[in-house]
């Protein structure tokens, strides 16, 4: 079972590469590069250090926006979940946030804030906060009334309630919100970098695009996607496995 976990995704990737190569050979078009060309382009950006440098710049921007979005979402989400009036008031903001395309946030932030750290931070925060807020607000509603009575009976302090009741209930919702939010944040940050910034993965994509280097565009895309997958499955998945360990302990 463990072996199939690695072998089957690997089989898919190999088949994808073979299919691509067949397509590239039959089309014989410079706009559809061979697997070998994409590979050597990937090797070039990895070996000259530019990939790591630019990815770190992009990740830093996402992290900054993420911190802001997380703080705001936690406060607003808990308030929405606990108070009907706050929820009714803030609901349109969340809905607008969810429906406005990330592309629009990226454009507006570049127009308003120009080439600055504010642009990327605000754009990422704006695309991350709505799904995170919604997820937290829904999670707060699932906090068990019966366990809240237990907290009252044993006179638990606010800190103990947060630790024993609120956070354990919210973990799955937080992780889910972070997951959806991050998948949106990646798209927005690349757009912001394409439109208005002079560093980062999006900027490099734009440069390769301008010089009609399709192999370069694909190499940057593949590399970036790989980093995202590692973050998603490795980091967030690992966090999830840790936080929900109690569920998977075998029954006696």
């Amino acid at each position, binding site marked *: 079972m463990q072996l199939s976990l690695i072998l089957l995704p690997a089989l898919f990737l190999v088949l994808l590469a073979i299919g691509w190569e067949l397509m590239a050979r039959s089309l014989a078009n410079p706009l559809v590069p061979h697997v070998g060309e994409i590979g050597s382009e990937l090797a070039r950006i990895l070996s000259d250090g530019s990939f790591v440098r630019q990815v770190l710049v992009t990740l830093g921007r996402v992290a900054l926006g993420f911190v802001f979005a997380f703080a705001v979402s936690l406060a607003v989400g808990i308030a929405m979940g606990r108070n009907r009036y706050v929820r009714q008031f803030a609901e349109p903001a969340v809905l607008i946030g969810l429906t406005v395309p990330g592309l629009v946030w990226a454009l507006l932030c570049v127009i308003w804030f120009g080439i600055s750290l504010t642009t990327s931070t605000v754009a990422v925060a704006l695309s991350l906060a709505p799904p995170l807020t919604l997820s937290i607000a829904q999670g707060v509603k699932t906090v068990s009334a019966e366990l809240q009575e237990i907290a009252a009976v044993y006179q638990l*302090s606010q800190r103990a309630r947060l630790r024993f009741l609120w956070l354990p209930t919210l973990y799955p919702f937080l992780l889910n919100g972070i997951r959806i939010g991050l998948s949106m944040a990646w798209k927005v940050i690349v757009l912001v970098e394409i439109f208005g910034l002079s560093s980062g993965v999006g900027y490099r994509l734009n440069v390769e695009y301008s010089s009609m280097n399709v192999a370069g565009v694909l190499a940057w895309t593949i590399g970036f996607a790989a980093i995202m997958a590692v973050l998603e499955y490795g980091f967030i998945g690992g966090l999830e496995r840790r936080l929900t360990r109690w569920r998977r302990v075998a029954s006696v």
Partner: protein
Amino acid sequence: MSLLAIENVSKRFQSSSGAVTALDNVSLSLDANEFVGIVGRSGCGKSTLLRLIGGLEPEFDGRIRFEGQDVHAPGLDRGIVFQEHRLFPWLTISQNVAIGVHEAPLPAAEKHRRVAENIALVGLEGFDDAFPHQLSGGMLQRAAIARALTARPQLLLLDEPFGALDAFNKIYLQQELQRIWTQQNIPMILVTHDLEEAIFLCDRIVVLSPRPGRIQTIVEVDVPRPRDRTSPAFTAIRKQLLEELGFALA
């Protein structure tokens, strides 16, 4: 002076179809070391009465005093066990039991000792590190009782604690509860719809009549412990209770 004094207590709930009187002018007192049962048909307000004593329903008419103090909020002096175990699913059994002393001003070693002592008292040694979903319903109720006792309450309130258990587990836990009551010298109030359970455990059984909940009668169980469920004295009380509850016997 009695440990618990309930004086002319009434409780109304607002519902969509108007106000419902759950309890009407109930007065009752409890002495130290007493085991009192409350029985009645569903909707007679027996759980409401227990929740009022526990301080979980702040709004009511009348007066409830515990050790001379007015009751209007939960307190560590009154432990409560519900029909559902209400353990935190993400905490182990010993962490759950430790919730009972989490806010107590005690050194960590003393808390630890009390947790271990009460886990042993309810017979759950060896299951300290298990999570609730790994244990059976009866074991979880025992853990809930251990959590309540760890806080060293002056009174233990039991709201149909064995209502969801199978017949054999029920009888076993009733015997265990009697042992704990004898060992710990702690007064208990048991709400139940199981007459046999009430007669087996209690000194006095309060019969509530439904809508509005009023005290219909109080039956003394003057049978020496441990009680034989099939003895004539036991069955006679059972018959008396059934008649009080309106089940005429042929």
